[in-house]
């Protein structure tokens, strides 16, 4: 069996294993596992969404926690005013994410490279400070959500409901991204990273393609925030803090940039590691920080050493190498 066929098995096996977790948790009588893995899957959803811009388009957005915050507060603020209808909340969440992503994206995409990193970070901080200073919605202390989103026949009332909803959405997203990667849009999007000038010469608008990817990514991240708010029944500015943006990037880098299932593995590894370290010492960041630094140092050649082990076709890695002269790969 060559490595391509082997890769094809990864997705079904992964989702079957994930589907077994609630049952295992029931058997060993540890309901905490469901809550924990629901959080893992939500972060996996956000990381997969971030991977659309970071992995496919090579745009390092350091401000994706902003969309998680938008999703959280869409639930929080609407239920604060007694609107717990899930459809309305989801609609508002998506609409707000689209509007914000278009506005922020159009400004951020005027820059590239390091400028883009810093500006996305600055915008998410702006939203963070906005929510901190808005005392009617809890300010620094956050906003309790007393009623979970109600979709009529389905209510996100407990951890296991959120778990299954996230599981289904993540599966759909993974299948969608599998298609997207090789669709005409996905191909052009990846081309904008490798050689924007040539894409421009072919008659595509690089800006529009990048902006569409940014909006798509923002909306899906917003839905992750929507689920997170229902899981924790809480919307708080710390969900928007830049640590979360950084952690999402770490998850992608652990799992493999530009791979569809990579961020899911990355989220699992990162959050399980974090949980283990937290159980071990309160100063877990003292260990986690250097691990992240080490991952960055080890991954600086796009994990060439790992790729050599798996002998993976280098399509994912190629998306990251810029070719300033514009010769074809």
């Amino acid at each position: 069996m060559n490595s391509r066929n082997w890769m094809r098995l990864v997705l079904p096996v992964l989702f079957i294993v994930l589907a077994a977790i609630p049952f295992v948790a029931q058997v060993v009588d540890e309901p905490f596992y469901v809550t924990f893995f629901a959080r893992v899957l939500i972060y996996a959803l956000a990381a997969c969404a971030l991977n659309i811009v970071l992995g496919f388009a090579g745009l390092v957005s350091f401000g994706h926690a902003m969309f998680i915050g938008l999703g959280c507060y869409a639930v929080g603020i609407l239920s604060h005013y007694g609107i717990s209808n899930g459809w309305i909340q989801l609609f508002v969440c998506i609409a707000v994410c689209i509007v914000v992503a278009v506005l922020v994206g159009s400004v951020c995409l005027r820059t590239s490279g390091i400028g883009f990193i810093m500006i996305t970070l600055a915008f998410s901080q702006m939203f963070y400070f906005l929510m901190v200073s808005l005392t009617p919605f809890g300010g620094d202390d956050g906003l309790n959500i007393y009623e979970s989103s109600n979709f009529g026949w389905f209510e996100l009332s407990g951890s296991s409901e959120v778990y299954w909803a996230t599981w289904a959405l993540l599966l759909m997203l993974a299948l969608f991204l599998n298609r997207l990667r090789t669709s005409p849009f996905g191909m052009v999007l990846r081309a904008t990273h490798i050689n924007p000038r040539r894409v421009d010469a072919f008659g595509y608008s690089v800006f529009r393609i990048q902006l569409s990817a940014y909006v798509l990514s923002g909306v899906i991240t917003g839905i992750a925030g929507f689920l997170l708010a229902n899981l924790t029944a809480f919307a708080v500015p710390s969900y928007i803090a830049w640590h979360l943006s950084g952690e999402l990037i770490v998850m992608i880098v652990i799992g493999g940039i530009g791979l569809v299932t990579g961020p899911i593995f990355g989220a699992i590894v990162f959050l399980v590691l974090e949980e283990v370290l937290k159980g071990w010492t309160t100063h877990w960041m003292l260990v986690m920080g250097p691990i992240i630094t080490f991952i960055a140092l080890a991954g600086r050649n796009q994990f060439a050493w790992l790729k050599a082990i798996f002998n993976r076709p280098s399509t994912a890695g190629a998306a990251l190498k810029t070719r300033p002269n514009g010769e074809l790969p």
Partner: protein
Amino acid sequence: MNSSLFLSQLLNGLQLGVLLFLLSSGLTLIFGIMNFINLAHGSLYMVGAFVGAASYNASGSFLFSLFAAVAAAAIVGLVIEHLVARPLYRHDHLYQVLATFGLMMFFNELAIFIWGNRPYFVTIPEVISGSVEILGAPYPVYRLLIIVVGVLVAFGAWYLIQKTRFGMLVRAGTTHASMVSVLGANVDLLKKSLFMLGAGLAGLAGTLAGPILSVQSGMGDPVLILALVVIVVGGIGSIRGALLAAILIAVIDTLGRAYLPGILALVMAPAAANTVGSALASMLIYLLMAFVLAFKPQGLMVSAKR
């Protein structure tokens, strides 16, 4: 509007701007010559604040604590350069951001580990703890001192970059690093000293800010974000841009927080004006950044390279 109050707010803004300049000049130079983005710069600021506060409380000498803070930050900067920055100079910004993000987590936790979670208490020496009258309003001497030190450092940086051999190499290095190396200058040493200089300036900013802001873990993070906004608005790699943008952003931020709720109260109910005003004030500098980028994507001052 009270003019002496306005003046003291303006001076507060200037003093914040000076601190921001100390931080962002190092950041922008390190980026300009080494193409390296250092998120741990805020941690160097924190190291300066903690070492300065601890050494002042231990020795009682303000000058000694200044020296100790700058030296500590520079040494930490050197270690970071050697272990983390150097292997990443030629690599994607993504990995630089990630590596320094990890460092930042490490330093924040290290500060909690050593000094605890609560703000660390630090006093101002008695000689400079008084206040002077400016146009009939009292203003703390210490804050004036920060402005003076900042202006001196800004002048020193200008002299260093424009008039000395070191500065000439730095300027040449930002545009033609490999050519400078070919001509026989030790670019490696140049990078190391520049990194140490930037780190030392961040440490100086931290120890100066210590007595007026609270010295605690994570104190570098919000300032780092402001410094990033400054270098984006000022033009990445440009010292003059950093100076201009630092003052502009600090003054706008300070005046916005002080006056925006009051101005809005003229057109809406006081309670609403207070909420909206403070929310808007916290967004003001980011809106300024978006505005600048919409017209000048490269920032206000474009360095020769970009």
